[in-house]
């Protein structure tokens, strides 16, 4: 390794550690909200260990909390996980992982590991950024989920502590950076339409379905809207790394 390479790797690791802490920390809110939604400790931990994708996990418990069906919960979590699938083709060539490392790399492919990995020069630095962030977030996310679940379990009625409002705020924080990134105008339009559609159909459709209806609107708009050259920033690098670290 040359000195320059060593510096690049060190910078990638440093960024990975800070992103891991910032992200891992809000595993506390996930753990607390999950038990407030009615999942037990083991189910909450299974979500963080096995599903390991913040947006999908929050969506899953959101649908459960609102009384939705298992199918709606799985479908919503799966749809929110689709973007992870789009990260694979970006990080796979950087990692060159084979054998057992490939499924491991796949499980650790989330917003943060992709963002840090692709933010550094291809080679050792990019690999260090991806693996340190992936493993770091995984370990801390699960530790903090456990803490939040134990805390939430001990609290009693979640409404008294405003945990129901915290869930809405968590989703708002997750969508916020996406409303100013690439395709901001279209994103705001779709977000607004999703809110209207979900609220208008909540009284008449079974719980969970209004949320899926919003996804259907996005698919129709995404496939049909002209690919107008909207003014955008730094879109070339990837589908979606607009989010700075710490948001998932």
């Amino acid at each position, binding site marked *: 390794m040359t000195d320059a390479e060593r510096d690049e790797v060190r910078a990638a690791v440093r960024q990975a550690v800070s992103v891991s802490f910032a992200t891992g920390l809000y595993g506390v809110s996930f753990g607390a909200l999950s038990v407030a939604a009615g999942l037990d400790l083991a189910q909450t931990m299974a979500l963080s260990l096995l599903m390991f994708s913040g947006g999908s996990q929050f969506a899953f418990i959101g649908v459960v909390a609102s009384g939705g069906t298992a199918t709606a919960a*799985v479908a919503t979590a799966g749809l929110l996980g689709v973007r992870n699938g789009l990260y694979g083709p970006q990080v796979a060539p950087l990692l060159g992982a084979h054998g057992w490392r490939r499924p491991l790399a796949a499980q650790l492919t989330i917003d943060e590991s992709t963002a840090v990995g692709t933010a550094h020069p291809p080679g050792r630095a990019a690999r260090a950024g991806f693996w340190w962030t992936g493993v770091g977030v995984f370990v801390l996310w699960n530790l903090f989920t456990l803490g939040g679940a134990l805390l939430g379990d001990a609290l009693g009625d979640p409404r008294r502590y405003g945990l129901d409002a915290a869930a809405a705020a968590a989703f708002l924080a997750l969508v916020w950076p996406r409303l100013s990134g690439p395709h901001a105008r279209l994103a705001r339009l779709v977000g607004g339409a999703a809110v209207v559609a979900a609220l208008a159909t909540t009284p008449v459709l079974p719980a969970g379905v209004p949320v899926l209806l919003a996804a259907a609107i996005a698919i129709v708009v995404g496939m049909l809207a002209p690919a107008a050259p909207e003014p955008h920033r730094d879109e070339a690098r990837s589908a979606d790394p607009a989010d700075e670290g710490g948001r998932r």
Partner: protein
Amino acid sequence: MSPTVTWVAVLVGAAVVFAIKLVGHLVPEHWLAEPRVARTASLVTVALLSALVAVQAVAQGQALVADARLPALAVAAVALALRAPFVVVVVLAAATAAGLRALGMS
């Protein structure tokens, strides 16, 4: 949802999310490089999260209810506009709702 059904949903959901990640690592790069596909995926995320904000903020079963969650969400929006970190946003929203309920709001 009964505990058994919840377990099935947790495991199937986790398998689906993992399968999506794995497929991303196995497909040839150009398959997903189509801009329309990438844009649609990102819009689906926006739509789902926006709908979840709305439902979490005002739905109670199948009824729409305005209670302490709405002012709490407004506080969260202000915090986000001021670039507060995620944890701060969530805690502020919870504290707002808890405070208003302690004062008698539903």
